[in-house]
């Protein structure tokens, strides 16, 4: 039986980092937005599940990009 596959190893999946409450607050202040104004990610999303994210958390995503080397995005975990 093959071992359990970690989705973060897949080429299409960028790095996801679960932010702590303090980090999240800092990011929101820097961007000057309310959490719901960020793009969302469902709590049932495979990547969010793998991180153990709960609704209300913020996930930092480091995308590889041909244009910018890498770029940073944030997603707000919503129920569903």
């Amino acid at each position, binding site marked *: 039986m093959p071992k359990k*596959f970690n*989705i973060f190893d*897949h*080429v*299409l*999946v960028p790095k996801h980092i679960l932010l702590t409450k303090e980090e999240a607050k800092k990011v929101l202040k820097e961007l000057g937005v309310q959490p719901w104004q960020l*793009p969302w990610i469902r709590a049932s999303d495979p990547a969010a599940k793998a991180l153990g994210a709960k609704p209300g958390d913020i996930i930092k*995503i480091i995308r590889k990009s041909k244009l*910018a080397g890498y*770029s940073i995005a944030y997603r707000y975990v919503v129920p569903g």
Partner: protein
Amino acid sequence: MSKKSGAVSKSSSYLEERLKTLEGKLPPSIIEELREKLQGIKLTKEEVDKIINYVIEEYENSLVEPGEAVGTVAAQSIGEPSTQMTLRTFHYAGVREFNITLGLPRFIEIVDARRTPSTPMMVIYLDEEHRYSRKKAEEVARRIQYVTIENVSKSISEDLSTLSIIIELDPELLKDKGLTVEHVVKALQRLKGEIVVEGNRIIFSSPDITDFNKLRKIRERITNLKLKGIRGIRRVVIRKEGDEYVLKTEGSNLAAVLTVEGVDPTRTITNDIHEIAEVLGIEAARQAIINEMQSVLEDQGLDVDIRHLMLVADIMTHTGRVRQIGRHGVSGEKESVLARAAFEVTVKQIIDAAIHGSVDELRGVAENVIVGSNPVPIGSGIVRLLMGFSSPQRKEESKE
């Protein structure tokens, strides 16, 4: 001489120092390029500063300005080339072995976020062990390809006199798929009934079969009985790409294929965006949308800036689910009644809005064009004056 080289090392360390301060101000790729280009060139501190300041200025000038209608620009930039696409292709172009939807139909499919693509397809990469030999690749292909009884038999016929079904197996096909008659019998045992094997002929009868209708139904079930493989994978083709063998499939089932032995799960992809969202998450789906759109455009020899595609993908995945650009997705979920009415099903939108007593805040472009207000909130028109009567900051200030 020694004085000169000292100056160089000094300036290069100064360069490093300056480049570090740029993080966050410039994208990493530009910083990297600066480092590459400036290294080994003799420069004074002033020159380094001058170059870097110039790069920052150029970069900031090339940024999108607040209020710019990026969505409209993206729509036009994708729309114009795709009209050329219509003229050139409305066909299926084959990858020799089977057809894939390409060109405009495929592009519409991506943007509409259809549940399943009209030609689902997977590209399966193999692991280190199976990658380099055709034989090993075939082994994996056999594990993946979905095989039913129909695929290995010459004929499946109904015997009306005895109310039984006669399966005539093809030994060559069986061998090709790596199966034996026993496999077929085993699969048949899942159905209630009696099985008689005569060489390559299997006769199946069952007490359940009481009339012709039932016989026909059972026959249908037997033809589609799974022998091996992964549901949904109709065909597998082995192709050589560079120095490794790659499997291309007709039909898609990402979750199941990723667990198959011999498959490299880190690179295996499908063209079914919803499947990717389900198995790998919304971020992977975003990337997949961009990749798919880009490959369609590239196939057609059209040059569309990737940033437009990124914007489309961002909007489609904004809510954590893959939404279509259209009535049931992005356009249909707009806040403004008038903007929705301007898009499609105008009367329904307006009736619904009337029933619910909706209010249009007139904040978007479409609704402002409709009511003829001036200025429309794009570009410099986006600036508005706000008077905060009860903002806490003001209160604090007035106290002081």
